[in-house]
């Protein structure tokens, strides 16, 4: 079954095109990495999946539908947004934030009960934050906050997981652990995952397919199909150097800053 299907989708903000003629589909259980520079339409792609922005042309099918009840579809999608620090004075604990993931399913009137609390604690444990359950969410470090938001998304029991640069602003060591954690949860829960990043090396070892996006899809295929000097040099507009480290392939461009 296609979990996500875009048919010639174009999205524009007033007169600025953010995505142009984008077509792709994603099978259940796939892990898709989306790589592109700033302003390439990566976040817009996720927001189109969520129904936050409407295409000016083309069709979007999510979880077997193309519209239906948008709210019902969204409740089946786990979303980790681009990092914005949690207000350190906002009065919620880490556990409360994770519990928010259960709100759409338990409905109005009911409050989370023991069952949901136990599941929330187990989810916090899965992301290594069980010790911080009762800490104020905004007092956690940047990396911990990202793991917390991942836990909240997982608490929703999603079928589709959308991650928007989940490691932005996180130190290098935590970044690697975060991606490993996401991959592990993706496998264990049988999720379909779209992982958006500007750093191709971060996701190369983990993804089933890779999309190079810059308003339009520049390349889409397995890692071995996409990670070729010709395709990458065309995409980055610069010479590309490949390196091997601990059996993993790394990509560098000549004018790389980080």
């Amino acid at each position, binding site marked *: 079954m296609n979990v996500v299907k875009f048919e010639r989708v174009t999205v524009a903000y007033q007169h600025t095109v953010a995505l142009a003629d984008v077509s792709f589909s994603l099978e259940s259980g796939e892990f898709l990495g989306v790589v592109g520079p700033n302003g390439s339409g990566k976040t817009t792609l996720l927001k189109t999946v969520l129904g*936050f922005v409407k295409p000016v042309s083309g069709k979007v099918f999510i979880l077997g539908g193309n519209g239906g009840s948008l*709210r019902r579809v969204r409740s089946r*999608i786990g979303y980790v*947004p681009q990092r914005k620090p949690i207000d350190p004075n906002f*009065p919620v604990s880490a556990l*409360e934030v994770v519990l928010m993931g259960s709100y759409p399913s338990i409905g109005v*009137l009911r409050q989370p009960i023991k069952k949901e609390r136990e599941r929330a604690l187990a989810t916090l444990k899965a992301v290594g934050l069980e010790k911080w359950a009762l800490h104020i969410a905004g*007092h956690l470090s940047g990396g911990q906050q990202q793991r917390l938001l991942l836990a909240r998304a997982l608490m929703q029991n999603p079928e589709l997981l959308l991650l928007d640069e989940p490691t932005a602003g996180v130190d290098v060591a935590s970044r690697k652990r975060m991606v490993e954690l996401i991959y592990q949860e993706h496998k264990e829960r049988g999720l379909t995952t779209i992982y958006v990043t500007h750093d191709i090396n971060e996701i190369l070892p983990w993804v089933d397919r890779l999309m190079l996006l810059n308003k339009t899809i520049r390349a889409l295929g397995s890692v071995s199909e996409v990670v070729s000097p010709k395709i990458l040099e065309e995409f980055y507009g610069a010479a590309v150097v490949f390196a091997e480290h601990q059996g993993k392939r790394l990509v560098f461009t000549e004018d790389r800053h980080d």
Partner: protein
Amino acid sequence: MIEIFGYPFVTNAFLGALLVGTVCSVIGVLVILRGLAFVGAGIAHAAFGGVALGFLLGIDPLFSAILFCIGTALLIQLTKKKATLREDTAIGIFFAFTMALGVLFIGLMRRYDARLYGYLFGNILGITRGNIILMLALAFVVLLVFILFYKEFKFIAFDEELAEASGLAVGLLGAIQMALIALTVVVSIKTVGIILVEALLVIPAATAYQLTNRYGVMFFLSWAVAVIACIVGLFLSYILAVPSGATIVIVSAGLFALAAIFSPKRKRCRVCGREP
């Protein structure tokens, strides 16, 4: 002191103050956490147009104020969404428009009605049994709806985009929240007046915000601050023979100042070593 409760108007005043303190403090927490303080001010000023219309048409000004406040609250929400305006801009438009309507309605009355002054600055001693019944009914509706959507309001206050992405009806819940603020404003008009109602909506919750990091505790502290401010303010206004609405607000501001000075949040976080 206790003998003053022998007068029905004093009993009504205290009942009114307690009702207003309770409703304002609870809804005030949502106002503070979502950064809607200016919305409260905008809706309060819309009440002026509603009250003036009530006087012009010869109907209960509180009823016309309900319609005006809820209408304005929903129009602010709608304008923000449909006209892609920032919320403060939408409020600024309706703030001025409804005030202008109020001035126009007063002009059309061709006479001055002294009771209008009571709605502007509050006349807690003028609260009647009928007012109390209406306030009780409104307060009941506000608190019931608040309890129904307690957790959803928390999620939206925490992160609106995330709440919407999770499948919550954020647009509808936002409109309900605006309607609750509008009803709270109407409940409070008789006690503190249109001009000062914003203070009760913001100060008790802001005081509680200084004192706790727990969501549930914040509601309790906000309620306690509002009730203390209302009772102490009312007693002081009786003793000093000064306007009650203003006294209640000044006592609230004093409590806020104390909370801000002694706030545990001002101390450096020892665990994480970060400034709060």
